[in-house]
């Protein structure tokens, strides 16, 4: 079992490096940061352009540039941006902003999604099931950038109702906010609610659909009938035997759901003005910066693979057959 998880981990590390290399190579091949500089008016002298080119290692072949960059990463140096600022200095703040959004979003999403799926499976073809199904279909068909903009309206309505701007929809904290740790937490919470809701709604819809069908599969199964026949109450049988079995396919799904979450996070960050990793990716592409793109890719790859590995572990925890 431990061997299995370690083998998966090794495989994931290789995938991580390959994914980052792919993104770095792609970015280096398509980006042309010098072109932006050339468009300046008055045009900078050729010597400046050459210096910049050497500075960004543009005179070297792509694999060598990648090796330089990876060598730097090993020492905690993620290179410099096109505008000559250190990537690593900005990294922790942005990672913090994104992780806050992702983690709360995924916890809420998985929790409520599983709950909603189980409820609608148990109450199949009742009104609540139809409403839950309708909800997930509509949410899954609404792109995040539409959903985010839509959610700003009820937030505005709520603010009008209570008379103050409690729910904030731009930024991730009040600029220049001074106060105790606790007050700062409260301040951030006001900015957090609407974006997190945007992320979590999509996740809830996604997981509840699959949880519902997994649970329906289980509801008709023989072992559940056996469990009830041997004297367990329906509720106990459902939660001890049914839910646990129905969660197994969800463990696999979790890894895929995370990719969805990251893409959604990019939109959410842009719409609500959060300076997180997703926002940085867009900035990186717009300013044609290979180092930023590679850093964000590495972050995303690590997240996706951690979630993949976590789903392997969950699978082993939930399904004893894997553990032999």
């Amino acid at each position, binding site marked *: 079992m431990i061997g299995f998880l370690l083998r998966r981990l090794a*495989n994931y590390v290789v*995938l*991580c490096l*390959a*994914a980052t290399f*792919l*993104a770095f190579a*792609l*970015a280096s*091949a*398509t*980006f*042309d940061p010098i072109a932006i500089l050339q468009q300046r008016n008055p045009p900078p002298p050729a010597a400046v352009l050459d210096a910049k080119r050497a500075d960004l290692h543009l005179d070297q072949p792509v694999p060598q540039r990648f090796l330089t960059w990876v060598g730097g990463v090993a020492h905690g140096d993620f290179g410099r941006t096109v505008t000559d600022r250190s990537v690593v200095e900005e990294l922790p703040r942005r990672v913090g902003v994104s992780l806050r959004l992702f983690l709360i979003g995924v916890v809420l999403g998985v929790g409520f999604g599983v709950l909603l799926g189980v409820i609608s499976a148990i109450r199949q073809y009742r009104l609540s099931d139809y409403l839950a199904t309708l909800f997930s*279909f*509509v949410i*899954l*068909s*609404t*792109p*995040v*950038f*539409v959903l985010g*903009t*839509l959610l*700003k*309206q009820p937030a505005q309505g709520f603010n009008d109702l209570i008379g103050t701007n409690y729910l904030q929809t731009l930024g991730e904290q009040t600029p220049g906010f001074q106060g105790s740790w606790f007050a700062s937490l409260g301040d951030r919470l006001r900015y957090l609610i609407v974006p997190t809701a945007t992320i979590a709604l999509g996740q809830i819809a996604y997981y509840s659909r699959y949880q*519902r*069908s*997994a649970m*329906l*599969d289980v*509801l*008709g199964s023989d072992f559940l009938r056996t469990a009830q026949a041997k004297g367990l109450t329906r509720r106990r049988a459902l939660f001890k035997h049914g839910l646990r079995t129905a969660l197994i*396919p969800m463990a*696999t*799904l979790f*890894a*895929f759901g995370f*990719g969805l979450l*990251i*893409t959604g996070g*990019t*939109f959410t960050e*842009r*719409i609500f003005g959060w300076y997180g990793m997703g926002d940085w*990716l*867009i900035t990186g*592409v717009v300013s*044609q910066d290979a180092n930023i*793109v590679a850093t*964000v*890719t590495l972050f*995303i*790859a690590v997240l*996706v*693979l951690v979630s*993949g590995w976590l*789903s*392997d572990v969950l*699978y082993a925890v939930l399904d004893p057959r894997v553990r032999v």
Partner: protein
Amino acid sequence: MVTLTEDGATPGGSPVDTSVAAERSPSRSRLVLRRFLRRKPALIGLVVVVLLYAAAFLSPLFAPWDYAEPDYTAFLQPPGGTHWFGTTKIGEDVFAQVMRGLQKSLTIGLLVGLISTSLAAVVGAAAGYFGGWTDRVLMWLVDLLLVLPSFLVIAVASPAFKGQSWLIFVLLLAGFSWMITARIVRGMTLTLREREYVKAARFMGQAPFRIIAKHIVPNMASLLIIDATVTVGAAVLSETGLSFFGFGVQPPDVSLGTLIASGTESAITYPWLFYVPAGFLVVFVLSVNLFGDGLRDALDPSAAGSRKRDKKVKKGKTGKTGTGAQA
């Protein structure tokens, strides 16, 4: 109902539809059609999808305004009059613009659905059929592409196709949406490979790719049809998302994504600029999803999420939900 149970009783909930209709029972296509028609939401979905395609391509024939013809007497006018959905700040007719955008988005969606499902069928079947190193290399590639969100890759590659044809964008979208299906196809191929008719074809000396094309892929037709349908919706979502950031469809062309992007700023002040394209987008994707869902139930009643009474008949598990990183 008798035919239904027969159909649902494929051994082990196998993904293959071996619905050999007994004599006197209706043909498979009629069976599928009947099951599909029973599902009202799916039917509504199909009708709406067809209507939207028709509207996107036919409305320029009868709409009062052309998308490229600004009305200099009406800036930022709310819906009503000859401008059915209002006008933009330079007097363009929102209805004509949205139809134009719908055209592009739906075309892209359809193309991506077709290309990516074909690619998934070929790659998945090849990996499953040949096994060994082919399988390992292809599945590693699938894993690799799954690690990188397609959004990221296309965004990074977008400077390269700026000023190029939108068809490159279609190829990129298709190139990054086939992986999960390929995994499912591979899993099915593994079981199909051991079937007698495939073995027979092999022993008769047929070429591997001929076997894949003639015996394996046709037996997954229902899965592929469903997948192509759902991918159309997903592709439209990806397309609009990328275009929203300016990484997709480029300016002289408009798509629902670019329209929504330009309307987002004024969602509160001039709501029609945002709600009209966003509404069309959501309605389209919703209809495609409902249609795909109904199609799944009609074509493949043994799949997860089908009705309970069908379920009682079959024993064992459906292998379809566990398509993940486990292989």
